[in-house]
């Protein structure tokens, strides 16, 4: 896209504090129209808070934020009218039927029933829920509820779609169906902003992403670029048995670019994994198992956000 086009979302030193806790701590990014932009990070990293500020439902503590050139705090209804929102937790009205959820939501945008009725049917088709049109929301599976939430978010034909952990808790089949639907939206020119802690999801859907931890941006780039910048091309995984992994690590020094001993295995980050494995064997070490694989976003993620559990 030409550089002259203003970004659809622009955040500059955006912060949100709850008392002493800095949920979001000065993050800056721009999202051009049509891009699929991901916020990747562990639980509590500030992803959802950022999404809620973009969504115009949570006030920032400081910094600047514009959506379609508008400040959500001054032009809340205008900003929200541009968006489709898929929240982390479904909030469908379970007292309404499946199709009625779409109609009622469309009314919030002042859309007339003459538009909403056919539109609701089309979106149900899109979400593969046509047969469930008259069903109670209670009766839907988790994946179906998620697809209904996505269908609902599209009722106003938004150009920007905010998805907060869209596939968390879904089985693989349901996730793939969802990814397919989201990919079609992306193809039709919708700007997608999504948070996730699934690396495969980020790789599938995001043109560009930021890794967020403790309210700050740790890295930014396309999935491939992040792997290039923060990891090696390949990873060699070695298992020597739980007791020996750490002791063996000392003898592995100098192989590959970086060495990471874990309780259950030792990781060697190298450009060429097979070559690294030959060096290991030539030093007379005999791993129980060895595996050479391509570096993934997960390696980048764990490197940047650490391996300790975040609760």
């Amino acid at each position, binding site marked *: 896209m030409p550089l002259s086009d203003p970004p659809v979302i622009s955040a500059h030193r955006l912060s949100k504090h709850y008392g002493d806790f800095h949920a979001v701590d000065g993050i800056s990014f721009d999202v051009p129209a049509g891009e699929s932009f991901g916020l990747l990070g562990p639980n509590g990293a500030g992803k959802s808070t950022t999404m809620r500020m973009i*969504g115009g*439902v*949570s*006030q920032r503590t400081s910094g600047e934020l514009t959506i*379609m050139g508008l400040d959500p705090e001054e*032009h*809340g*209804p*205008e900003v*929200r*009218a*541009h*968006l489709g*929102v898929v*929240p982390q*937790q479904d*909030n*469908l*009205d*379970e*007292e*309404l039927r499946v199709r*009625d959820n779409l109609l*009622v*939501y469309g*009314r*919030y*945008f*002042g*859309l007339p029933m003459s*538009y909403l009725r*056919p*539109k609701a049917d*089309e*979106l149900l*088709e*899109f979400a*593969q829920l046509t047969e469930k049109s008259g069903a109670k929301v209670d009766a839907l*599976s988790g*994946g*179906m509820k998620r697809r209904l939430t996505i269908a*609902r978010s*599209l*009722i*106003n*034909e*938004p150009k920007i779609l905010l998805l907060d952990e869209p596939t968390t808790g879904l089985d693989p*089949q*349901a996730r*793939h*169906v969802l990814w*397919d639907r989201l990919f*079609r939206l992306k193809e*039709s020119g919708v700007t997608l902003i999504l948070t996730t802690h699934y690396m495969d999801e980020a790789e599938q859907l995001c043109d560009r992403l930021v890794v967020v931890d403790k309210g700050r941006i740790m890295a930014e780039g396309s999935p491939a670029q992040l792997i290039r910048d923060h990891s090696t091309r390949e990873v060699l995984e070695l298992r020597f048995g739980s007791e020996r992994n750490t002791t063996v690590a000392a003898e592995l020094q100098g192989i590959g670019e970086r060495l990471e001993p874990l309780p259950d295995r030792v990781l060697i980050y190298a450009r060429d994994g097979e070559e690294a494995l030959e060096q290991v064997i030539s030093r007379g070490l005999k791993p129980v198992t060895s595996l050479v694989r391509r570096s993934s976003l997960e390696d980048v993620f764990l490197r940047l956000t650490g391996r300790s559990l975040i609760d």
Partner: protein
Amino acid sequence: MTEPTPSVASDDVVVQQPYRLHAHPPEISASRARRFGSWYYAEHVLRSMKSYRWTLLASSVGTPVIYLFALGVGLATLVDRNTDDAFGGVSYLAFIAPALLASAAIMTAATEFTYPVMDGFKWRRVYYGPHASPLNTDQIVNGHVLAIAIRLMATTTIYFVIVAAFGASDSPSGVLAIPVAVLTGLAFGLPLLAFAAGLEEDRGQFALVMRFIVTPLFLFSGTFFPLETLPVFLRWIGWISPLWHGTELGRALTYGYELPVWLAVVHVVFLVVLAVVGLHLARSVFARRLGK
């Protein structure tokens, strides 16, 4: 769940169709939401009531019938035989009918402004859907209140029709007891809405409200006997009770119970103030909680 095999035909349906129709631009959505947002949310609440319509109708008809038979016919026979002029020269049925009408509004408001509010914030998080739309939080509150006011209007109208059928309202101004009952319901319900919106979890507070606020109000607000027959140290319950204020107004309207104008004004002002203060509190609690 299986993915359908992609084909030209299914592509036409799945991909082309969603973009054939077009929504009006976001600017129009926003300006409509700014103007009519409260109505939009009220529409939602009323639609979701539709799934209960038979239950609602049955209780709207059944409750007055039961009360009027038990108290207005059963108890009244005994009371009317043994009292001369204790109820201002009218039948016991005529005396309690406006009180029952106003209590029905309070009972309905007490149900609508408790558990459904917890549902909206916590259980099914229904409020968070519209919150992400162009509506603002004040409109969500207004819309909810508007829908409940409409429900109260329907319930008390049915109640009034049944009361009239029992012959308990002979004055033409009696119809005005309906809006008075709705106001009474809101005067009680809106502060309750603010309270319910502030609760993080239900640890039985709503059951306590029913048992220790709604029930005493029902019994001690001059409902079944004039407030003056209570000892002075219990009369304050009536004075602070929206039910008493609403009932006094209702009596003046349905059977010409003598009420000085200044006192009628006090009753109305009391009810309006409670409702308005409750509404404002509720709005600020909603804004704080949804906008975290």
